[in-house]
């Protein structure tokens, strides 16, 4: 075809050549499209199921739903802890174009404080992506309305509502109910250890104290789940299915709110505590520790200023004095020690000593003095309880010896946890030889035993221990565990009561010994020589009681205690235990008023008021009766 200088064009040959190449091209095109199609066949038909699964994995997220926390009622069905919707301003930073500008704008609109902004930034740094971060919580209705009107200017910012705990009676029940607060790292670690992590996946708050903490498991409930469709930004488009959460159980307490309020009022702002229980069940009817504080402060995160104020207050409001306060029980334990002396045969009802106001041991120089300088004269065990004679008990302690005292008082629960359904409990201290060796590496001296006879020395007890011990005496050795919770609310609003919990009873040798001591306590309140007569002799019911005045300050051997000369925090603690009605007791009370002075004059009136209130609706109560120590106030009001 080709010539040396110029090829002569053969158009038909060229056309044929092109046509062949065009056909080859078309075949290649079809072959390559075949490759595309076969690849698509693999993707869309053969591997369809796998890709369908991955596609669903992209768009379907399973989100946990927090269960509603169980409510808490008092024994009469009054709501003590409820769930209220709380509105908070939340930001998803990834959905905001210019975070700083948005925050500036919100600062102008809502008056966001620098502290709130700082907290927000702090949370933001440690946060997972696309998780909302709270800028301000507990929005008022005005704030919600203010923001809602402007919401369209703020992408990624929203007002979210969730249920949050509220304690309508504030500080009245703090030490009983405790409170819930945000789950922190430590809580989370515990949940992980307990395998409860998944159950708390959507939960914000956890019980930190009191009943809220002790019954956390029942109150919390079981997490639910919802399947939602989300877009690539994680925003929920719609809900596909819901597996609803199981709400927590509603709890009914043994606590009687009205009685609790009366207990609070009876302390009249003094430091101290009142524990009221039913001797028949061990149920705790009231438990107030003063001073208290508002638990609602903690629910949404207490400010550091408020918290350090509570933490550093010399009045120590954070501790529950009823279960954590360790007080020398003082003379309140005299009926118990007297019982042990009688049961052991160390003394008889007729055993008497002659009290001159001074007690000495043979060959010991130290003199133990009675609170009554000149002594009570000739006293037996009943008089010793009634008049709170110290010398008789110095002698009884000497006769019993520390081992027997320690052993028998442990049986009454001293130095042991009562088992009350609160984690905030102290076992206080019942001293013994072993304890002193372990604690001080010192032997027990006979001189240590003598003040134990009047509930002093190393002996400390919590008011709930004291109350439990008196209940044991009332019940002739039957021992109940103090229970704050009565049971759980059933579906029909009935109370499904928790079974009563008991400790091993104390063996009774002679029932009449127990009756004798109870009778002595009756005399304390109603005999004209009883130490509690001024508070109880005019009561419209018969009762038992025992005063105690705990010395916190050692007076030198040759001096006497003068209240006005001792700084307030070292003044005597006033204590009183009481129960009523004397036959078939329904209520028993332990009162401590810190640094108030003598028990019979400062704690007994508190016990009387509380018991009077307990019987407020009984026939025998005179509706016009006003306790003497309140008369002045009533007039004043």
């Amino acid at each position, binding site marked *: 075809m080709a010539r040396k200088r110029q090829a002569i064009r053969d158009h038909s040959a060229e056309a044929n*050549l*092109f046509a062949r*190449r065009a056909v080859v091209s*078309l075949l290649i*095109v079809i072959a390559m499209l075949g490759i595309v199609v076969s*690849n698509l066949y693999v*993707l*869309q038909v053969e591997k369809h199921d796998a890709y*369908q699964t991955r596609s669903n994995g992209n768009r379907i997220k399973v989100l946990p739903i927090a269960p509603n926390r169980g409510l808490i009622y008092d024994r009469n069905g009054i709501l003590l802890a409820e769930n209220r919707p709380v509105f908070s301003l939340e930001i998803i930073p990834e959905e905001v174009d210019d975070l700083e500008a948005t925050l500036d704008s919100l600062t102008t609109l809502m008056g966001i404080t620098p502290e709130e902004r700082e907290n927000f930034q702090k949370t933001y740094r440690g946060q997972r992506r696309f998780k909302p971060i709270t800028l301000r919580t507990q929005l008022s209705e005005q704030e919600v309305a203010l923001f809602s009107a402007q919401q369209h200017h703020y992408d990624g910012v929203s007002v979210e509502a969730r249920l949050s705990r509220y304690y309508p009676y504030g500080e009245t029940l703090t030490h009983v109910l405790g409170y819930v607060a945000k789950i922190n790292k430590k809580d989370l670690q515990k949940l992980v250890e307990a395998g409860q992590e998944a159950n708390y996946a959507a939960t914000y708050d956890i019980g930190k104290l009191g009943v809220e903490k002790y019954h956390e498991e029942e109150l919390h409930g079981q997490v639910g789940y919802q399947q939602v469709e989300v877009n*690539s930004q994680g925003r929920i488009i719609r809900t596909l299915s819901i597996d609803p959460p199981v709400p927590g159980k509603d709890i009914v307490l043994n606590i009687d709110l009205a009685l609790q309020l009366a207990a609070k009022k009876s302390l009249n702002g003094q430091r101290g505590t009142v524990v009221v229980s039913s001797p028949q069940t061990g149920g705790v009817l009231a438990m107030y520790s003063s001073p208290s504080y508002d638990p609602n402060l903690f629910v949404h995160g207490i400010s550091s200023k408020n918290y350090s104020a509570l933490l550093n207050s010399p009045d120590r409001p954070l501790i529950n004095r009823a279960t954590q306060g360790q007080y020398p029980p003082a003379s309140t334990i005299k009926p118990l020690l007297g019982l042990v002396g009688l049961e052991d045969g160390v003394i008889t009802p007729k055993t008497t000593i002659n009290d001159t106001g001074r007690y000495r041991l043979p060959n010991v120089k130290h003199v133990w003095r009675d609170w009554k300088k000149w002594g009570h004269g000739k006293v037996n065990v009943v008089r010793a309880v009634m008049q709170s004679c110290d010398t008789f008990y110095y002698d009884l302690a000497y006769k019993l010896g520390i081992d027997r005292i320690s052993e028998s008082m442990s049986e009454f629960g001293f130095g042991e946890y009562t088992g009350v359904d609160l984690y905030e409990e102290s076992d206080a201290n019942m001293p013994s030889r072993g304890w002193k060796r372990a604690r001080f590496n010192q032997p027990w001296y006979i001189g240590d035993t003598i003040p134990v006879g009047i509930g002093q020395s190393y002996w400390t007890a919590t008011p709930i221990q004291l109350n439990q011990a008196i209940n044991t005496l009332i019940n002739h050795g039957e021992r109940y565990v103090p229970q704050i919770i009565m049971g759980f609310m059933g579906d029909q609003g009935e109370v499904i009561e928790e079974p009563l919990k008991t400790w091993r009873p104390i063996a009774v040798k002679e029932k009449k010994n127990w009756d004798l001591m109870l009778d002595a306590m009756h005399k304390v309140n109603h005999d004209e020589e009883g130490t509690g007569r001024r508070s109880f002799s005019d009561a419209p019911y018969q009762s038992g009681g025992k005063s105690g005045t705990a010395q916190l300050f050692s007076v030198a051997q040759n001096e006497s205690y003068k209240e006005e000369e001792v700084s307030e925090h070292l003044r005597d603690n006033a204590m009183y235990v009481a129960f009523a009605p004397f036959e078939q007791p329904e209520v028993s009370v332990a009162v401590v008023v810190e640094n108030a002075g003598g028990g019979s004059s400062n704690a007994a009136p508190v016990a009387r008021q509380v018991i009077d209130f307990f019987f407020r609706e009984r026939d025998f109560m005179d509706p016009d009766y006003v306790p003497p120590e309140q008369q002045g106030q009533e007039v004043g009001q």
Partner: protein
Amino acid sequence: MKRTQLKQNQSTLLERIHIDGWLLIGLLVLMVVGLYTLYSASGQDMGQMERQFTRLGIAMGVMFVMAQVPPMAYRRLSTYAYIAGLLMLIAVLLFGDVGKGAQRWLDLKFVRFQPSELMKLAVPMMVAWYISKFTLPPKLMQIGIGFALVIVPTILIAKQPDLGTSLLIASSGIFAIFLAGMSWKLIGFVAALAGGFTPIMWFFLMQDYQKQRVTTFLNPESDPLGSGYHIIQSQIAIGSGGLEGKGWLQGTQSQLEFLPERHTDFIFAVFSEEFGLVGVLALLAIYLFIIIRGLIIANRAQDAYSKLLAGSITLTFFVYVFVNMGMVSGLLPVVGVPLPLVSFGGTSMVTLMAGFGILMAIGTQKRFLSR
């Protein structure tokens, strides 16, 4: 005789305005499918729909204008267009605007312009002009010069860097040479040479981001949230579409925005998810129809220049389709090539339609040519 007369009368209107009816039908059907798909892929964004509609209108206008120009005029223009394009490519490299991390634009004060788009047509025109000066099949020397004409702009565009366009331009030139009848022996030799050239390209010519695309292509699951994310989400979209698809506007991968660039380069994944393999086969049938019609026009063209240019334009159109579908479905590395007339985007669509305009000019303006 009478029948022929009748047929000529029937086609008078379209012929008079130099429009190829079959090609027009194919393109219109494709555009309608494209608009439907874009409506879904853009998340029912009417603003985008309007802009795409406007562009399609402009592109149709350009096609119409281009169809009026006699093929001989294109032939005469070939060298000027090529030289002007080459100069502008150099100008872009020297002082072009940077857009999306690549220098592609030339700012001519009154309009911003991508010289590489001009080259998409200028390169096949130039190669066709050069090869058709001689008798077919071309000799070794002519093939060598033809390749040189292709490689220079290809490298200049690859330098911008724009791998997709350089690939399209290289293929358009090579198709012209292939269709001219380059011997199969030589084809084998060149293929071997290209194989040897690959490592040089990898080490000296490709940018890091281009290399990453290739490694990601080889193993997308190695970085599922980073560079592999596009292709994994795209494959999930296609695969979950199955045989019949999830239905129009029902594709979860696209509607819930898991699929990136869903209305531009990855729109095929949206189509596959919502219409399934059945829909894809229908779409491919439309493309194949256009390609066959293009090849028929090329085959019927009366001079070598027209044949080579028409064939090259048609096969380059196929390269768009193949590369786009290949990259979206994981057959090929991700290079920026749109799905022709379906993807959202302006310049490449206008160039494509200009090419179809030339194709129609070739197909309808035969009578001025003597055999």
